[in-house]
């Protein structure tokens, strides 16, 4: 097995790109990443995407994007695992390079969610759940997270404003990221007065529907020197890559309030890298909803069960806190173009480790963790990156 490094990144500002199609936004990110890596020769393109079939009537997506990006006669395949599609695609790229099967792989996470009406997009997102036994009963994806949050508040006696700190931190950090969808801090009042989507989840607990694409170029670490020349900002190594699953339906979980797949995949990642939670400079977690931030912190070793929300209340998650999270806005403020999100997390982790995160830069960032969640906790992929 070879070590794998990232030698190029690219991203599109997250937003509502009605003037661009999925092929344009994916190419934007890929072209930027290849330019940075200084190469046009790749062996494979792996695309992470969830909804192109259901929302755009476009499958065979990786070949469409490879074609549009001028990548002919390469391997091209789409990887789908709901909102964890981006990190799952990275993991496939990582395996391809680590195994020696390929030398240069470009991975792109891409999603176009604003071409359809809100109800169609909501129905599309619900396909991440069990179609016959969850979605058939009218539960949306927000609804599933609301069921978790309601029970969490009941079981651990958590006040309604306990989750505000996650949203406030994400928006405060997103305000420093030119690629974020929302670049504006919010106040506690804004959070407390936000309209409900599915009780107890309000709009400020929830990440937005949007479009986006982010990409990275992967090479064997032993060959990274060939790409890191001139003004190149330096290679970032993938120290760990791990994935684990859980029941697809929330109602089948052994404990619906514990992310077992996050626990398993993060433990695997800690073992692979020899890194402990205390060694990690910042954590790009999957804050699609504020409750998921609390559960992720609990499952990855930063808080006891039922106490993840204390980290937000104590602002331990801020840029200078014990474990900075959502450092460039997270899903809440940067945006959550679902199949692209895992790759935005990776691109932002690389930015932090290179010291290129601008006003959002974390001091002395040396090791970063990114965790991407598919479904209501059914697929969870953890990556740890280091200088």
């Amino acid at each position, binding site marked *: 097995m070879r070590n794998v490094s990232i030698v190029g990144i690219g991203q599109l500002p997250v937003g509502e790109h009605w003037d661009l199609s999925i092929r344009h936004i994916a190419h934007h990110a890929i072209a930027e990443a290849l330019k940075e890596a200084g190469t046009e020769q790749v062996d494979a393109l792996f695309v992470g995407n969830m909804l192109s079939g259901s929302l755009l009537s476009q499958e065979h997506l990786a070949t469409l994007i490879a074609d549009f990006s001028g990548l002919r006669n390469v391997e091209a395949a789409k990887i789908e695992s709901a909102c964890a599609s981006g990190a799952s695609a990275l993991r496939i790229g990582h395996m391809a390079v680590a195994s020696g099967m390929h030398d240069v792989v470009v991975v792109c996470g891409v999603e176009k969610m604003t071409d359809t009406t809100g109800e169609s997009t909501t129905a599309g997102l619900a396909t991440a759940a069990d179609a016959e036994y969850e979605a058939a009963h*009218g539960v949306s994806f927000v609804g599933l997270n609301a069921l978790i949050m309601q029970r969490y508040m009941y079981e651990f006696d958590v006040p309604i404003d306990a989750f505000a700190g996650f949203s406030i931190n994400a928006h405060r950090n997103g305000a420093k990221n030119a690629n974020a969808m929302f670049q504006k801090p919010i106040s506690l009042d804004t959070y407390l007065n936000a309209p409900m989507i599915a009780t107890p989840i309000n709009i400020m607990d929830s990440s937005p529907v949007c479009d986006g694409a982010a990409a990275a170029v992967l090479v064997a670490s032993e060959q990274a020197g060939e790409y890191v020349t001139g003004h190149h900002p330096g290679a970032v190594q993938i120290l760990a890559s791990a994935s684990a699953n859980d029941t697809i339906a929330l109602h089948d979980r052994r404990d619906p309030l514990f992310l077992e797949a996050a626990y398993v995949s993060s433990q695997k990642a800690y073992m692979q890298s020899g890194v402990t939670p205390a060694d990690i400079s910042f954590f790009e977690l999957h804050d699609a909803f504020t409750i998921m931030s609390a559960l992720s912190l609990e499952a990855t070793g930063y808080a006891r069960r039922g106490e993840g929300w204390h980290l937000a209340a104590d602002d331990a998650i801020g840029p200078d806190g014990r474990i900075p999270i959502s450092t460039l806005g997270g899903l809440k403020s940067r945006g959550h173009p679902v199949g692209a999100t895992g790759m935005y997390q990776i691109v932002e982790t690389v930015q932090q480790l290179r010291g290129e995160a601008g006003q959002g830069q974390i001091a002395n960032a040396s090791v970063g963790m990114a965790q991407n969640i598919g479904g209501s906790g059914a697929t969870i992929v953890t990556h740890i990156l280091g200088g």
Partner: protein
Amino acid sequence: MSIASLWRTRQQRYSLQGETCPDCHQAIFPPRDVCPYCSEAAGPVHTMSGRGEVYSYTKMFNVPDGFLAQRPYTVALVKLEEGPMVTAQLTDISDEDVEIGMPVEMVTRKLREEGDSGEIVYGYKFRPVFAAAD
């Protein structure tokens, strides 16, 4: 859901038909090929009583296609008395009265609006269990 899928799952939607694992004796809903508790092959048919309690609930304001006419509505995780949990809507109750731990029972209701093909989808919802009058 397609008509074929609706037909296949009719026993589950109309009568909460599941299974009992012959090895570990756990009740399973819906039927599976492999017992989720002990990984042995799952076993004979077991129809749930339809009684349970609310494990969690949410009142949904933004809803998927097919459910617009009903909104807002309340979806719950219902812990059946046999053990399995199901996701279902609550009915015959005002939103303010829902509580975690509340006893509920299964009823059959129309689940969603007819689509272009016009099929009417019936299935389980849950309503509060009212104490019998003396």
